[in-house]
Structure formats: C-alpha cells, structure tokens
C-alpha cells in the first residue's frame, strides 16, 4: 500500500549526489547509495538501464540521476529506481571516453612499442570508411593524384549508428585477411562527438590495435581525437592528410630513380676518369723516375771515371816517387864504390908489391949485414971455438948454476956440430977453471 502510494506520487524524481557503496551482483542490476553532505538514499539500477549507460559507475562519482521512488518490501526500505544517470559537470560520452581510455591504456593498447612503422612504398592501400560522403572521395582523389599506380581496396562500412563499430572492426579484420594490403586508412569525415563515437568503441579500438597491417587513423577534423587515434600506428588529422602520409608522390620516386641512376653513371664515369688521370700521372711520374735513374747512372759513370782518373793519377805519382827513390837508391848503391875499389885494388897491389920488393931488397941487405954482424957475435961461433951450452930438458933453458940441476937429471949439451944428451952424475961446487 505504501509502495503503491509512493510510486504514484513520485514517478519522476531528479537528484544530485555522489555514488557510494556501489555493488554489482550477478543479476546485472547495480545497487548503490546516493548521498550529499546531509542525506543519503538507496538506489537500484536495473539491468536494462545499466545496458544503456555510456559510462561506467564508480564510487565517488558525482552524478545527476532521474528515477522513481519505491519500497523494497522485504526490508521495508524505500529506494530510488534509477533509469537515467549522467555525470555531473561533463557529458556522459566524455566520461565514457576517459574511462575506456584509462582501461585500454592500462592494458598497453596505446603503447608506443606497439606502433608499426608505415611502409615507405605501399603498393596496395586499404580504406575502411563509408562509401558515401566526402572522406572516401578525398582519399581516392589524393591517393591517385600523388601515386596513380597505387592499388586501392575500399572496405565500405557504416561509420555511425549502432552497427558501425562492429562493421569497422570486421572490415579491419577482413582487410588483414586479404594479405595483399600494405597499409590501411580507417576513418571518416567530420561530425559531432556523437557522430564520431564509433571510433571510440572498444571493438574498433581493439581491432585497430590487433591489426597486422599498419593503420593510419583519420577521424573527423584536426581537433577531433578518438581512441582509434590512440590505437592507430599513425594519427592523421583528416582523411586527406592520411592519404598524403600514405602515398608517396610517384613523380618524385621516378625522379629519384632517375637521379640515382644518373649519380650511378656520373660516379662510375668520374671514377674511370680519375683512374685515367691517375694512370697518366703515374706514367709521367714513371718517366721522371726513368729520367732520374738515367741521370743517376750518368752521375755514377762520372764518379767512376773520376775515381779511375784519381787512381791513375795516384798510381802515376806513386810510380814516379818509386822511380825517384829507386834512382836515389841506385845512385846510393855501393856497387860503384865496389867497382871503383876493384879497379884500384890491382893498382894498389902493384904499388904495394913494388914497395914491398923494394923494402924486401933493402931489408935483405940490412939482414945480411946484421947476419954478418950476428955471426960474428953468435954463440955458435963460440961453440965452434970448443965451447958448449948446457940446457935443461925438455925446456931448453940454459943452465948457468949447478944448483939448478940435480943428480940423475937428463940435460942437453949443445956443441957446434950437434947435441949430446947427458946424465948428471955429480954436482961439485967451486970454480971449474
């Protein structure tokens, strides 16, 4: 009865407060207490309302709610059954965006390490966008203008509405499966935050993060930032910008190829030229070396000649000196004197002989005279007068004293015509006469 009365009187209640004591049991309904500084009330959000929520509820969140008052009869408590909640001070979408962003970020989905680099020369570009509207036309136009040879594969999807997120995610998956796509552009033209919402949906963000093929996100305008942008490998501010980023300019590639080929040719030509020059230089150098060698050889010849000349001169000088010395030696030789001496010897000899024979004759005469005189004085003459001389034997000393001989001694007696050997028989002193 109370419940019927309350429900009839309070069909639409608006409240503002902070969520606390939030509980989410298996039923899918949510329970929490809504409070402000002075009061609080129990609230319930049934599953159908929970599914409509764009953002997640959490304790401490300031919300504005709409509901109807009711009584939970088993406990006799009254409660507010909420059918609409919105965050206070900001939009529900903004909050949902922040909440999902925080969650996926925590999972590492936006991590810089996950980013793949774009191919420098993509051959096939996949585009996930609406087949209608300006974005797809801009993309095709810019891609073909820059690089007419690009192959473009469009995966048409709805980019807003309830099915959009699912379509975008499955298109990303399908293009990955094709295997021929080098790079992918996922995006749409500008719109409200509601319009762009699909690109904030978890399914899309996860599909982008999971893509094997590098993805450029291009959602809305420069100022629009979606979670798809965070997950993509590169964020382009607009679809046209994405096309500019993806497609190289064909004419520039061709030009670069031409330039590279030209540089190749120039380099090889200049290398050949340089080598030619070096060869020339070397041959000039060789010639100069040859000249130097010849000059050196000439110098050697000169030196040899000079040496030869010097030796010859020295030899000559030495020879001259030798001759001089040998002349001197020869002239100093005793041979001449010997010869001279030899010549003089017979002369001297004859002179000697002459002198000697003269002397000899004179001396002979002298000798004869002396002999005559000697003869007259000689004991022999005395002997001839009958005297004898006694001499000792064997020495022949004249015996003048009888004491000089002894009895038995042999003595000699010289007489004028010979000698007598005598033996002393008696020694008688006194005068013999």
């Amino acid at each position, binding site marked *: 009865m109370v419940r019927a009365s309350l429900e009839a009187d309070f069909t639409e209640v608006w409240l503002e407060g902070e969520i606390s004591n939030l509980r989410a049991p298996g039923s899918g309904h949510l329970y929490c207490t809504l409070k402000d500084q002075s009061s609080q009330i129990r609230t319930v959000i049934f599953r159908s309302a929970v599914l409509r929520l764009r953002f997640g509820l959490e304790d401490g969140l300031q919300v504005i709610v709409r509901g109807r008052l009711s009584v939970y009869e088993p406990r006799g408590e009254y409660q507010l059954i909420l059918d609409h909640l919105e965050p206070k001070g900001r939009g529900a979408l903004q909050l949902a965006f922040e909440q999902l962003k925080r969650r996926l970020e925590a999972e590492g989905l936006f991590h810089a390490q996950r980013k793949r680099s774009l191919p420098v020369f993509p051959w096939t570009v996949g585009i996930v966008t609406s087949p209608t509207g300006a974005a797809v036309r801009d993309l095709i136009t810019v891609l073909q203008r820059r690089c007419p*040879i690009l192959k473009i594969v469009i995966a048409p999807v709805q*980019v807003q509405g309830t099915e959009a997120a699912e379509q975008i995610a499955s298109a990303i998956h399908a293009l990955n499966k094709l295997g021929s796509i080098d790079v992918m552009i996922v995006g749409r033209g500008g719109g409200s935050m509601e319009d762009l919402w699909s690109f904030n949906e978890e399914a899309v963000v996860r599909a982008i993060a999971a893509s094997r093929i590098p993805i450029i996100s291009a959602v809305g305008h420069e100022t629009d930032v979606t979670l798809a942008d965070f997950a993509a490998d590169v964020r382009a501010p607009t679809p046209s910008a994405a096309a500019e980023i993806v497609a190289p300019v064909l004419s520039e590639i061709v030009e670069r190829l031409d330039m590279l080929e030209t540089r190749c040719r120039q380099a090889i030509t200049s290398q050949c030229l340089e080598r030619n020059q070096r060869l020339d230089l070397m041959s000039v150098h060789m010639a100069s070396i040859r000249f130097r060698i010849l000059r050196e050889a000439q110098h050697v010849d000169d030196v040899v000649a000079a040496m030869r000349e010097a030796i010859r001169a020295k030899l000559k000088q030495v020879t001259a000196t030798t001759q001089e010395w040998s002349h001197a030696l020869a002239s100093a030789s005793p041979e001449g004197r010997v010869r001279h001496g030899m010549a003089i010897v017979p002369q001297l000899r004859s002179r000697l002989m002459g002198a000697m024979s003269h002397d000899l004759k004179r001396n002979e005469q002298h000798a004869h005279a002396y002999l005559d005189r000697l003869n007259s004085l000689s004991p022999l003459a005395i002997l001839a007068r009958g005297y004898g001389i006694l001499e000792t034997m064997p020495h022949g000393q004249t015996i003048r004293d009888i004491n000089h001989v002894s009895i038995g001694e042999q003595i000699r007696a010289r007489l004028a015509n010979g000698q007598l050997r005598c033996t002393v028989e008696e020694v008688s002193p006194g005068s013999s006469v």
Partner: protein
Amino acid sequence: MAGVKFEQAMARLEVIVGELEKGDLPLDESLKIFEEGIRLSRNCLRVLEEAERKVEVLVQDKNGKKQLRAFTSEDIDLKGSTGES
C-alpha cells in the same frame, strides 16, 4: 609484397650510389655494383610502369563471403543513406 621489395631495391640503390660516390672500391667492384645499380633502377621503373592502377571494393556476396570487385562511380553514394551526415 611488391612494396617491400621495391623499398629494398631503392635502399640498395641508394647504398650503391653512396659507395660509387665514395669511390673507395676497386674498379672491378665498382663496375659490378654499377651494373647492379642500373639493373635495380631499371627494374624499379619497370615495376612502377607495370603496377595495377585500380580501385577495388571489398563486398559481401549472397553467401556472406567477402570478395573484391572493381570500384565504380556508382559505389560512391552521394545520398548518404548509410554513411556519415
């Protein structure tokens, strides 16, 4: 993928030009990589000339199987019944 090969070829060509311009290699090496460079450059140009140049659409057939078919001007629906506003 052709794009990767092309990129590698261009990178190799750049390296070759760098080497040739440095001029450190012996002449026969230089001539060898010169020939390689010219061949690469020619191949790259030929690949560019022979590229497919087409736009295709990934569509689902009656059995739900996805297929590629040529993109025509009718594919751009300016009335915007399914796309953005």
